[in-house]
């Protein structure tokens, strides 16, 4: 069982402590901890990693029957508030202008959107224009939104295994409907929760991002390629 640290007056907190506070659903304490760490000048990426570690613990406690929907919802809210705290700092540290367009959504059958929203915020911080289709988005809706928005990247978030087949369907639809010269259809990027190398290969997507930061780097790389004659 998890016992969160209670020595809140310490300014130098270990990563493990924040993760434990998140995992133990100590909303106020977790948010205060984030604020202290930000004030101490720590990189938001580090803090975010700690929060995600906490969420991973929440997930496994759910699997073991310690947490129920009530706990998952509370954890999700803590994560959302954490992102709100981190966001301005990330905007402040935005690394230069970029002008790619990313079409984003959580794939059909899946309602998780915390990670997707985080990825969206981070993209925007880095100068991308994002069209967010929301959650539970059928592959056909991504395709339908493409002609007008003309995205450079189509990005899908997926956290539940039941929805993985829809990722494959997404790729298939984009490939099938593609009459443009090779390499001119938007790149397809996937990520979220359990997406890994295996899911990536199964889906046939062009790229996958281990976390939101990796995802942004991929988008940046793709834009560079796009600029090349």
């Amino acid at each position, binding site marked *: 069982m998890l016992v969160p640290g209670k020595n809140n007056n310490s300014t130098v907190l270990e990563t493990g402590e924040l993760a434990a506070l998140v995992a133990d659903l100590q*909303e106020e304490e977790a948010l205060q901890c984030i604020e202290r760490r930000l004030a101490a000048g720590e990189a938001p990426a580090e803090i975010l990693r700690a929060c995600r570690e906490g969420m991973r613990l929440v997930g496994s406690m759910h699997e073991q029957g310690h947490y129920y929907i009530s706990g998952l919802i*509370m954890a999700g809210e803590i994560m959302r508030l954490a992102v709100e705290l981190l966001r301005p700092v990330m905007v402040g540290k935005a690394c230069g202008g970029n002008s790619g367009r990313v079409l984003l959504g959580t794939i059909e059958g899946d309602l998780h959107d915390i990670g997707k929203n985080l990825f969206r915020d981070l993209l925007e911080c880095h100068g991308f224009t994002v069209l967010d289709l929301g959650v539970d988005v059928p592959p056909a809706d991504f395709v339908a939104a493409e002609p007008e928005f003309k995205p450079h990247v189509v990005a899908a978030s997926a956290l539940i295994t039941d929805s993985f087949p829809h990722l494959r369907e997404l790729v298939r639809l984009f490939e099938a409907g593609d009459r443009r010269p090779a390499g001119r259809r938007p790149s397809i990027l996937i990520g979220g929760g359990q997406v890994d190398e295996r899911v990536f290969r199964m889906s046939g997507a062009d790229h996958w991002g281990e976390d939101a930061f990796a995802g942004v780097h991929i988008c940046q790389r793709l834009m560079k390629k796009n600029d090349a004659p």
Partner: protein
Amino acid sequence: MIEGWENMSSDQRQEAFLAKWVSGEGIEFAGDEVKAAYAYRAGLIRDAAKLKKTPERTPVVVLSTFAPTMLAGCPAKKAMYDPEALGKVWVDFARDYDADTSGNPALVMYGPPLEILDYNLYKWPGHGIKEEQGYQFLEKPYMKAEDYDHFIADPTDYWFRVWFPRTHGALKGLAALPPVYGTMELPAAGPWLATLGAPPVQEALKALMEAGRASFEWIGKLLPYMGRILSSGYPMYAGGFSKAPFDVLGDSFRGTGELMMDLYRRPEKVLEAVDRIVPLMVGLGSGMAVANNNPLVFIPLHKGADGFMSNQQFEKFYWPSLRKVIVGLAEKGCVPLCFVEGGYNQRLEYLADLPKGECIFIFDRTDMAKARRVLGGKSCIGGGFPVSLIMTGSPKEVEEETKKLLDRAAGDGGYILSIGCAMDDAREDTLKAFIQTGKKYGKY
């Protein structure tokens, strides 16, 4: 009123109210035979519920919303807009399918008043969803976190002046009303009455008048059909309706997400609010039951199911107020019929903590053998038949499964055979196979 009521225990009151119901008092039966059939069917339910006598067989109850009209090829929209078509289908359904009870067609509700009120709480056929599809709840946090104190101080005042304007587009004007309290004295009555005259309030009152008139006409058309269902020998499985206080708060006011977070953020407020709802839900259910001369009070249970919360949370936030509603209804002679949606495999021990034979639990996805083990001899149980088999199985498979379910759950009484779902859709051959098998093999 029933003689000697004042001095009766809950059990005696239930017996008296049930006896009145079983007798078919006030119903004009076509003949003595039909009257006897009615008394037989209602008697099966009474015996199953009270656990004092093994009924001749298990009663067969089919919980349904849009299934009767769907089966008759009448689209959901027509059911909600044409009370005569609705009534006729339900009369035929009761006779042709011949289960032991009928539902109440009035709970299909009428579309026009919802339109007049610009009702936002549900989507209904033709209004946000397909004409063939049953209505759908639109859960949102209509009540804000900062509203708890107002709600707790006076739920009805909150209901009228805050919740109505947020959930019914045409009642926005009610937000301008001051509370009613000033009317207790002449000098303070003026402000309240004057506000009633303000144009937005007048608009809201007009909408209510119009919705009321439309609904009155509707029920006037539907009532004769409800009378025919009863007079052809089919008692109804619900005389009243009520809810678990936690579900009232979660379904219609805070929404699941917000309420689940409230369990961590403001647990005392949640506890105060659910306690405040208890007498309202007792009054709602018993009032309807008395008006309909039918002691059964239907209570669908939603957010206490396995998975939603831990047992500790259930024990603190969900069960105590629900238990008070159950006990409170029984004190009024009503018989709560809880429709336990989802699974309750981790919660059965809590349900066992009730006076013997005062409440019925119809289960959806709970393990029925376990339900029998834990609740047998304590409360009447029911349900457990998978609706998926009705939709996809063959009559033969349904027959087999029904027999197996009876073996697991029927015991020596105290069981009501039913499908674990308030059905919006069904298939004729399998549903009939279910009902007939129940009647044939449900004999004790």
